[in-house]
């Protein structure tokens, strides 16, 4: 029997004139892992929330949702809590209390369990997932990955049969993501928990998922296994971005694999190693550096450690430079240092050949540099996007206004909306418009590709490329290696307070063994120099077979 089934689900938000979901039907067997894919705004979150009636959005719903063969509405709050648990995207907004220990106990406290039972179950679970080290900590001290792990544990402690996750890894770095998914995998394989997961970057889920549901314009297409999904997605340019690099690489050979290991083996068996390394066709002109950092030291408090520790960096005009590194290593701090928000206690940073300290007042942030924070919503504190842009124009004494820029970025229709109502991709574009209104020559972007779906990522990447062609210099900090490989001109690894092994992007990814893209790992023995999935696909299609 199915543990969960939906039939002909139609849903319309209150006040909306369009249906968000149209005739969605699918079913889930016990212990299955179901992957839900779809662009931002395709109704993934809506669908997931509808499955748990306590958190269902307000609107009109028709069709039936059955859980364990019973209609959803028949379940009491207690039963529902013990059947379905839910983890959402932002770890900051799921934690209710201020400590990990009380957060883990929260669910059981709600159920009215007694003290001994709560402590016993929480302790068992913390030990099972190996989070004893954070058990006594304050939530505020945790990294994003730890917070998300904590909310996952808090959801699982009630021993639910079904676990729903809405883009759980959107805010996490690769290491946090791997940890989270390995816990999910264990839950599924060792306890048989049914998992329904919506993801933008499903690379790690593909390995263990059983079923794929694709949402598009509110309609669902259900693939009973991942192979059939891959076959269908290969034909569809919109779904193509969801296929992981390892699968994509050997698809041209008529094979379907889901791990780097298998793809690597197939390619090594099929092709003879090529002598000539893949190289960039048009190497960039070497310009003189416009951003220079020398011996920069920075720490947050007198007694703390140096987050920037003898940092040296050169970035040339018109270059896209990507600083990669794991979360919490200080990439954001480095960006804030380089763009003058923080002052180093030692060392010198010069921008366009002039010491950053000698820019008086706001002159640095007007017509020189601009900074996009990790959360682009932070740039918008007015009621509508238009008001915010008008304010910036006024501050800049701009005469030509913002309309032409908005048109160029295709955000004109968003101008009268509240910034919080925009999706991740939309706010990113609006933020870019706002920054460009200050006419910067150098842009600092903090994790620009975070929480974007593959299409939005592509649009962002193209946008950055065209800005760099206009001669603007772009410095970005990211943990998204695929994005850096595709769009950056040069990369550096930020570690131990400094930029290590700064090189052209191709050199950087070809040289790295661990900190590199999947495509590069698969291809390096046969097609040296290949670093993106598209390049690998092209190489496979044009390569000499053995």
């Amino acid at each position, binding site marked *: 029997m199915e543990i969960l089934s939906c039939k002909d689900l139609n849903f319309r938000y209150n006040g909306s004139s369009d249906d968000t979901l149209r005739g969605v039907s699918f079913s889930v067997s016990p212990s299955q892992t179901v992957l839900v894919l779809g662009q931002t705004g395709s109704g993934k979150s809506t669908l997931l929330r509808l499955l748990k009636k306590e958190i269902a959005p307000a609107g009109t719903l028709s069709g039936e949702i059955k859980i364990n063969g019973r209609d959803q509405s028949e379940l009491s709050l207690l039963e529902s809590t013990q059947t379905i648990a839910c983890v959402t995207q932002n770890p900051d907004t799921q934690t209710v209390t201020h400590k990990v220990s009380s957060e883990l106990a929260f669910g059981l406290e709600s159920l*009215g369990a007694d003290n001994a039972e709560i402590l016993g179950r929480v302790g068992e679970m913390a030990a099972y997932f190996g989070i004893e080290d954070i058990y006594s900590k304050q939530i505020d001290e945790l990294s994003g990955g730890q917070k998300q792990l904590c909310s996952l544990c808090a959801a699982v402690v009630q021993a639910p049969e079904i676990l729903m996750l809405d883009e759980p890894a959107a805010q996490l770095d690769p290491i946090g993501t791997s940890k989270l998914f390995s816990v999910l995998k264990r839950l599924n394989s060792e306890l048989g928990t049914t998992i329904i997961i919506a993801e933008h970057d499903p690379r790690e889920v593909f390995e263990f998922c059983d079923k794929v549901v694709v949402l598009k314009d509110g309609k669902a297409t259900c693939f009973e296994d991942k192979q059939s999904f891959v076959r269908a997605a290969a034909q569809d340019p919109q779904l193509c971005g969801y296929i992981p690099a390892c699968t994509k690489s050997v698809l041209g050979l008529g094979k379907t694999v889901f791990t780097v290991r298998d793809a690597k083996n197939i390619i090594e068996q099929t092709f003879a190693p090529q002598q000539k390394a893949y190289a960039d066709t048009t190497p960039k002109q070497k310009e003189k550096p416009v951003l220079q950092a020398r011996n920069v030291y920075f720490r947050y408090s007198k007694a703390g450690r140096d987050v920037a520790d003898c940092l040296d960096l050169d970035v040339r005009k018109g270059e896209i430079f990507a600083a990669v590194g794991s979360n919490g290593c200080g990439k954001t701090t480095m960006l804030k240092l380089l763009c003058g928000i923080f002052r180093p206690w030692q060392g010198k940073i010069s921008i366009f050949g002039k010491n950053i300290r000698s820019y008086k007042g706001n002159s640095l942030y007007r017509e020189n540099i601009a900074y996009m924070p990790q959360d682009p919503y932070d740039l918008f504190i007015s009621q509508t996007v238009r008001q915010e842009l008008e304010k910036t124009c006024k501050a800049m004494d701009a005469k030509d206004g913002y309309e032409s820029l908005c048109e160029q970025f295709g955000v004109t229709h968003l101008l009268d909306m509240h910034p919080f109502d925009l999706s991740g991709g939309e706010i990113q574009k609006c933020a870019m418009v706002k920054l460009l209104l200050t006419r910067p020559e150098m842009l600092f972007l903090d994790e620009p590709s975070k929480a974007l779906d593959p299409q939005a990522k592509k649009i962002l990447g193209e946008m950055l490329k065209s800005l760099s062609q206009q001669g603007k210099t772009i410095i970005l900090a990211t943990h998204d290696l695929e994005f850096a490989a595709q769009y950056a001109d040069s990369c550096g690894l930020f570690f131990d307070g400094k930029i290590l092994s700064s090189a052209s992007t191709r050199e950087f990814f070809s040289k790295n063994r661990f900190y590199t893209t999947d495509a590069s790992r698969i291809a390096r023995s046969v097609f040296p120099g290949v670093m993106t999935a598209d390049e690998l696909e092209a190489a496979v299609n044009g390569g000499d077979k053995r």
Partner: protein
Amino acid sequence: MCYFRTFDPIVPMTYFLCVMSICVFTANPYLQACALLGGVVLLLCIKKAKALKLLALSLAVIAVMGATNPLFVHRGLTDLFYIGKDPYTLEALLYGLSLGCSIASLLIWFSVFNAIVTQDDILAVFGKRLPKTALVISMILGFIPKLRRKYTELLHAQYASGASRRKSLHRSAVLFIACLAYEAERVMDISMSMKARGYGLKDRTHAQRRRFRKSDAAAIAFSLALCIVCFVFIGKGRLDYWYYPRLSPNGFDPFGVGSYLLLCISPLFFIVKEKTLWRYCPAKT
């Protein structure tokens, strides 16, 4: 200060309540001396060199209160000297010093209290009886750092998008409102997370990581007993003391003052015990 950790948090809380309830209201110099002595010794034991700043401040408070009181109050019969036509009296000087001691000992005891009783202890004490209130407190404690971080982020974003760096009330207000709006938006998600985990079922409980033991009860009884003895003596007037017009000849009751002294320095017993135990502890090597 590990030893307080071995007690239920209600023990230190009761203890501090007992000590402070007396030292705040009394003008008796003997009791004040006890409170000051106990507080200073405890503070030095807990904070070591870091306590010196507060001690210097306390000394300054006592000196200033002592020196200035006679400038405004001219009661008392022992004139030391005259400022203009007004006498500067010994009694007023001593009364000022006594007031200063009250304030200083309060400062010192609060500092000790803060070092020992954490937010979580307060929460644990309330949580047992009032689980919902405990949850609200815990949520607020979690909310404050989030709000603070958001404020900094917004401020940095504003700097770097061309806004002025000048501090102004207007800017703070705008940013603060934006923070609140942002958090209000996020509160929706939090409430979803709460509902998803069964919040709203009746009979909510509160998990306690520690159980109340006999030793806790004994420690509370000890503090309360000494405190009550003091109050009895105060009620009987055996510990009354006055400064005007002449210094009071009595106010020193050995039993009353002794029990307060014992109360104030009783934590020393545990500190010494802990040091000794640790000294001969096999884990040390």
